[in-house]
């Protein structure tokens, strides 16, 4: 009887640990609106969400175009919304289990590449029930460690996305510096040639008349 319960807890633990899914991190191009759904397996799970707008395909590659994000729970009630943000990282406790919807709306008329990441943390719920289920203490600690590591990976993914965004902005800035200087020089030379030409015209006309 004891062996059966041990085997059962082992089974539960392995199902649980194998189900601990790490972050999903994807990049996609948004046109006008894009919606994603992700299932939250247990009520009371902490859902960590982050998104970063990597680049916006504007002609001159400038400006802080942002997106709106609306988070809805399975019954359709709005949990969170963010307006015109280029990057955001937040978390919430899921009140219901099921498919949560994340809808992005593009604010600018250009295509934007967005890096989106969702991570579901189970252990806050797990701790409350650990005493009831008699999970082996070692497995429980390993589970907690795994969860902490996935959390670190989630933060790191966000950092990486931010770094990518900054790299693109910096490259754009460098290119724009050169373009600006060349354009400025060309404008100066053009303006001076025009000035000389106009003055010559003026004096030749006056001299011609005299």
């Amino acid at each position: 009887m004891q062996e059966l319960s041990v085997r059962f807890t082992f089974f539960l633990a392995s199902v649980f640990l194998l189900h601990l899914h790490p972050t999903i991190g994807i990049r996609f191009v948004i046109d006008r609106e894009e919606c994603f759904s992700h299932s939250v397996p247990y009520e009371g799970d902490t859902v960590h969400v982050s998104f970063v707008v990597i680049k916006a395909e504007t002609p001159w590659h400038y400006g802080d175009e942002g997106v709106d994000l609306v988070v809805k729970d399975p019954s359709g009630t709005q949990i969170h919304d963010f307006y015109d943000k280029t990057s955001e990282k937040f978390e919430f406790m899921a009140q219901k289990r099921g498919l949560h919807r994340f809808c992005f709306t593009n604010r600018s008329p250009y295509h934007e590449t967005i890096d989106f990441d969702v991570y579901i943390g189970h252990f806050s719920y797990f701790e409350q029930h650990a005493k009831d289920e008699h999970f082996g203490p070692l497995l429980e600690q390993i589970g907690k460690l795994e969860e902490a590591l996935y959390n670190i990976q989630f933060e790191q993914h966000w950092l990486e996305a931010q770094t990518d965004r900054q790299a693109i902005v910096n490259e754009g800035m460098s290119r724009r510096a050169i373009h600006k200087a060349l354009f400025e020089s060309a404008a100066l030379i053009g303006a001076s040639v025009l000035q000389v030409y106009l003055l010559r015209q003026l004096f030749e006309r006056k001299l011609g008349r005299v």
Partner: protein
Amino acid sequence: MGGRTRGRRCGLLGSYMLTLALASFLAVAPPSGALRFELQSGHTKCISEDLKIHAMAVGKYAVVNPSDSAPLPDSHKITVRVTSPYGNSIHYADQVDSGNFAFTSSEEGDYLACLWAPDHNPPATMAVEFEWRTGVTAKDWTNVAKKGQIDVMELELKKLEDTIKSIHDEMFYLREREEQMQDMNRSTNSRMAWLSFLSLAVCLSVASLQLWHLKTFFERKKLL
């Protein structure tokens, strides 16, 4: 006495392996950690993922059946293509309702997985479940367990070790990127300084050229 306990231990290990296999089957069957999005007929949706060299990637996609009893209608089929950053096609599936792909990246860059639904009259919207795992999460841990006859504890600890290693590698990569950006900022800074001197020099030289030209012009016309 020793023989009896050894026999019992062997039976226990076997039953543990069975329960592990059952649990992993439950974990593997539906892509439960997947992201779900809507695909309209005639439209394409692309998802990209930045992979480093020699990174393992595993992907799973399935069209969600709106009704549980009826089979999936023929219009609910998608075409999937996975391409590498240099344009090589890694995986191609035409008119399927589910599938999976796995590969090891040979080039570093953005890998694109594009799904499109064929045109249909009236336009239908189907929900697609898509899951893409890279690196540590792409490894098939159940195979690792079966190969080495390892118990769950050791398996989990191995998984943790791999995760920590990948975090460490990512941190090195982030440090490299940071250094690159610092270099670029420094170069942009010095470039802006040189270019503003250039602008000033162009301005002054052009002004002096103007003065010289007008002077000779007026002297020629006997006005000065």
